[in-house]
């Protein structure tokens, strides 16, 4: 059943697309390239389960669909449970001789709200039960679909419509949940972080995620021009900067224990200052007011501390 992943541009052009053009995602949204890269990694029959969110809403508005592979959406907080059902049903129906293929790959996709917050219980349950599936979060840092509200993935200093920057507040004060490590703590076979800019790294990791037996998790950073108040042409640059500044380092965690830093992060001589990432976005603009200078410096210090800790875990 196994068709190869398309990693080179030449192969990518030949690989069947899973998402058609004409969907209604915003210009510059990081999610469609993320999904298209996921498609480059597929190895055969695949079923996609999608949590409620931008991607679900904008790719399926009835009576249209942009999906060229079987796809199901049920609700916001339950995509891991839906995928559990899909995976187990296909397995038992195969055992009973009622399917055409011996195996399907099952992929669950959720935004950061569906993954870090409302669907975390459902995700944790599915990971503990060990279903053979890949869960991918496309993390755009807030509830962008409902109009840019803060989530557990929102960065400190980020302004959203429920973490306003004001006279008293610098945007969100709390740190972002370390979702990849929370997931890895379930000791699942494979966890990796990716961005759509680092496309070879993305496809290679997604393929590994498909190939391991049991649950695998992909944390994809997905810039959102609408919420981040960035130019739609800067999406890939922001994805690249997220890695270079250490906001979203690229690494893998094998069996919850072995940390491997990926080349784009490993090859960095030093981190680029966060300012380079912040200044392309309206949502951090207030941090450059004099009253938030200390706060901004603290955010930078925390990113560096996290980076040093990660390097230690990766043995770099």
């Amino acid at each position, binding site marked *: 059943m196994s068709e190869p992943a398309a990693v080179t541009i030449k192969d990518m052009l030949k690989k069947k697309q899973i998402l058609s053009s004409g969907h209604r995602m915003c210009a510059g949204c990081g999610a469609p390239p993320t999904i298209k890269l996921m498609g480059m990694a597929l190895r055969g029959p695949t079923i996609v389960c999608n949590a409620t969110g931008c991607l679900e809403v904008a790719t399926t508005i009835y009576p249209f669909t942009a999906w060229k592979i079987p*796809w199901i959406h049920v609700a916001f907080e339950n995509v891991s449970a839906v995928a559990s059902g899909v995976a187990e049903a296909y397995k038992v129906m195969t055992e009973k001789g009622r399917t055409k293929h011996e195996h399907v790959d099952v992929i669950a996709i959720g935004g950061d709200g569906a993954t870090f917050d409302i669907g975390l219980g459902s995700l*944790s349950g599915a990971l503990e039960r060990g279903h053979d599936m890949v869960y991918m979060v496309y993390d755009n840092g807030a509830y962008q679909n409902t109009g840019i509200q803060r989530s557990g993935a929102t960065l400190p200093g980020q302004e959203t419509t429920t973490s306003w920057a004001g006279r008293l507040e610098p945007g969100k004060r709390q740190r972002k949940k370390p979702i990849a490590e929370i997931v890895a703590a379930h000791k699942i076979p494979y966890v990796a972080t990716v961005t759509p800019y680092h496309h070879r790294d993305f496809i290679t990791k997604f393929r590994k995620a498909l190939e391991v037996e049991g649950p695998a998790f992909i944390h994809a950073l997905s810039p959102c021009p609408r919420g981040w108040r960035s130019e739609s042409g800067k999406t890939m640059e922001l994805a690249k900067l997220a890695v270079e500044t250490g906001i979203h380092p690229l690494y893998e965690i094998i069996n919850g224990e072995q940390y491997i830093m990926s080349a784009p992060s490993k090859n960095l001589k030093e981190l680029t200052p966060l300012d380079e990432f912040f200044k392309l976005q309206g949502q951090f603009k207030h941090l450059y007011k004099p009253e938030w200078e200390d706060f901004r410096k603290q955010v930078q210090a925390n990113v560096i501390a996290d980076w040093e800790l990660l390097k230690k875990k990766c043995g770099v």
Partner: protein
Amino acid sequence: MATKSKTPKHPVDIEGLTGDAAIAVALRQCDVDVVSAYPITPQTIIVEDFQKFAANGETHTKVIPVESEHSALSACIGASAVGARVATTTASAGFALMWEVLYCAASMRMPIVLAVANRALSAPINIHNDWSDSYGGRDSGFIQVYCQSCQEAYDTTIMAFRVAEDRQVLLPIMVCIDGFILSHNVERVEMLPDETVKKFVGVREPFQNLDPDNPITLGPLCLTDYYFEFKEQEDRAIRAVPEVYKRVEAEYEKLTGRSYGLLEKYKTDDAEIIIFTHSSPAGTAKAVTDVLREKGEKVGVLRLKMFRPFPTDAVREAVKNAKAVVVFEKCMSFGAPCNPLALELRTALYEAERRPLVADFVIGLGGRDVPPETIVQGIEKTKDYLKKGKAPMYETLGVRK
């Protein structure tokens, strides 16, 4: 259409089983592909027994021991969407947690069987029986059937798959039993041979499923231009249930000699006062009826089996010659004109040429015992109301006031 019993055509296995255990056996015999469930009293025996069957290889089923009832029904939808035959079970707070997903299951037309051991809702937390849980899902698009005995729970669970999976229906179905009163009480249950049940239910043939060779999109966003049409079709589907149910039951009756109907009429033909209720209070009401009949009182019981879709015409027809209908129900609809079962009845009767007087009694909340005296008390009050020509919209019985 009282419960009939003829000599069955097939050899039967007779055992003393609780309502929960009877449902677990039925699920095993129905060759269910996926069971996804979370434990909650008083349903727990169903998942426990079923897991034991699975552990012993007595059923070829993937059991998904989910982390919540919300996930239980969500996993059922995923599995059903692939084309599997699926079941789950819940009660009370677990049912409430499922509530969002009930509507998804129905509107996505997933023929899931959900066994409910009816239990009161918190607060105060209480593990005993009333109908507040499943009544809360009465508008979800699920078919709802309520059983009076462990035998009926067994029979209904088997028939449920055929009704839900019928191409004219394709809707999920709740098979409800009274928590503890039925779920934990041992009764005589006649079981069909495994092969007979397997043949009766057949293998599910899905209509539109997640198939890599024929990709479809299930559960899309749907706004002002098409959402209403989905609901229109769902309504048409649930309206088709009574005919399908009757057909399935006729076939089942040939195997077992047992049938229940959408309604059970017990001594109602010449009854002046008809008791209208379902589940376990119906059994008590029948016993009371027998005693009162001996005293020459013209009393009968109309036991509702199918609450959704509500058999409006049949109910209207069954009570048309009565002077009064006495409703006994284990649920309160706070702030409503009266309570759910009486609301249905009064609505059904509004268009009737002759409307009997209706008295609505809320009984047994949180498992408060419903002895024959409570039923007699309701009947006596109704006789008074008949003399006065008017009954209150509702009353509670068997509670400190």
